[in-house]
């Protein structure tokens, strides 16, 4: 079962991803509401998630910075970047994100990307 860490500052978005991903058979191992919380939780967890779903515009630390920190700790970590800010795609990929989805996206598109990324 593919394990997922969800990072987004909007509770309703976190709940939505959780509801859908759990229905599709994914295991949600954690949630974080800003980049710093994501980095903290990631470094404290011995069993790393297979995939991280990362938002960009969040308080304290944004998604690009958080991705950079996480990839520094584990260069093999798979991060799928999801954001309403399409202009941030290049920065996200440069930080180490393996894929990018502009919001709003269809959940099937996210599942497709999760599938591809977890098989890599």
């Amino acid at each position, binding site marked *: 079962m593919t394990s997922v860490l969800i990072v987004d500052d*909007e509770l*309703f*978005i976190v709940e*939505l*991803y959780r*509801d*859908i991903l759990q*229905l599709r058979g994914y295991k949600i191992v954690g949630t974080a509401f800003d980049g710093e919380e994501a980095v903290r939780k990631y470094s404290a967890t011995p069993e790393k998630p297979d995939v991280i779903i990362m938002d960009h*515009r969040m308080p304290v630390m944004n998604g690009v910075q958080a991705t950079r920190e996480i990839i520094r700790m584990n260069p093999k970590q798979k991060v799928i970047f999801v954001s*309403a*800010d*399409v*202009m941030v795609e290049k920065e996200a990929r440069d930080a180490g994100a393996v894929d990018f989805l502009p*919001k*709003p*996206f*269809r*959940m*099937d598109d996210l599942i497709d990307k999760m599938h591809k990324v977890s098989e890599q």
Partner: protein
Amino acid sequence: MQAKTSKNREQKIAYFMDLLSHDVLNNNQAVLGYLELILASSVIDKKTRKYAEKAVSHIRTSTILVDNVKRLMVTRDLSPSELKPTDLLAAMNGAEREVVRMFPDRKIGVKIPAGPKQVLVIGDGAAGDLVLNMLVSMVRLDSSNSVTLELKMSETVSRGRKYWQVTLADPTAEMPKIAKDRSIEEAYDEDSSIAVKMVGILYCRMMAEMLGGGFEVRELNPKSESKGALFVATLLQAGEA
């Protein structure tokens, strides 16, 4: 001093526009996601499924409108020379996929020209938005269930500068008279309710002009009864700004 205050005010409005657009997109994401959950349920009847599918396509429209607002806010402060080149063929292929998804209850076919590997025009993401808005606006002018759109490209030169001309033809579209040769200011001053109906076309015209090109709306077959519609966008080739 007054110019500085006005610039500050504009900047403040731009921040708010950005924040509000971001919020709308997040909410669109939630609505879209939950509609998809409803559609995935095995117990919903045919009618409910159809309603949910229609709602999904409207979410996409709403998102495009927000993207247009964001794109205008970004592009208005830039000159064409500050915009990155973008591949028109890739934009056409992306827009085709998008428009088919936006109208799930209609059969939409888009013919895309085979051409060189890359057709570079000035415009960054704005050129892609422009092509998508052309397709969507044309579908809206066509009330038939099966819509066939044809995109063509050709090179033109005007005043020593090279352009790519993109035409979009639909023989069954019905073009509103007001859409011809009308600027957004004229249409808005005359009747803003009419301007609202042709906002996609007006957006295409304004964006093409901001990218250093132009946009025209014509009848496809002026002499026949079913006149159809033709959009002509002219975009500066990369390196010509």
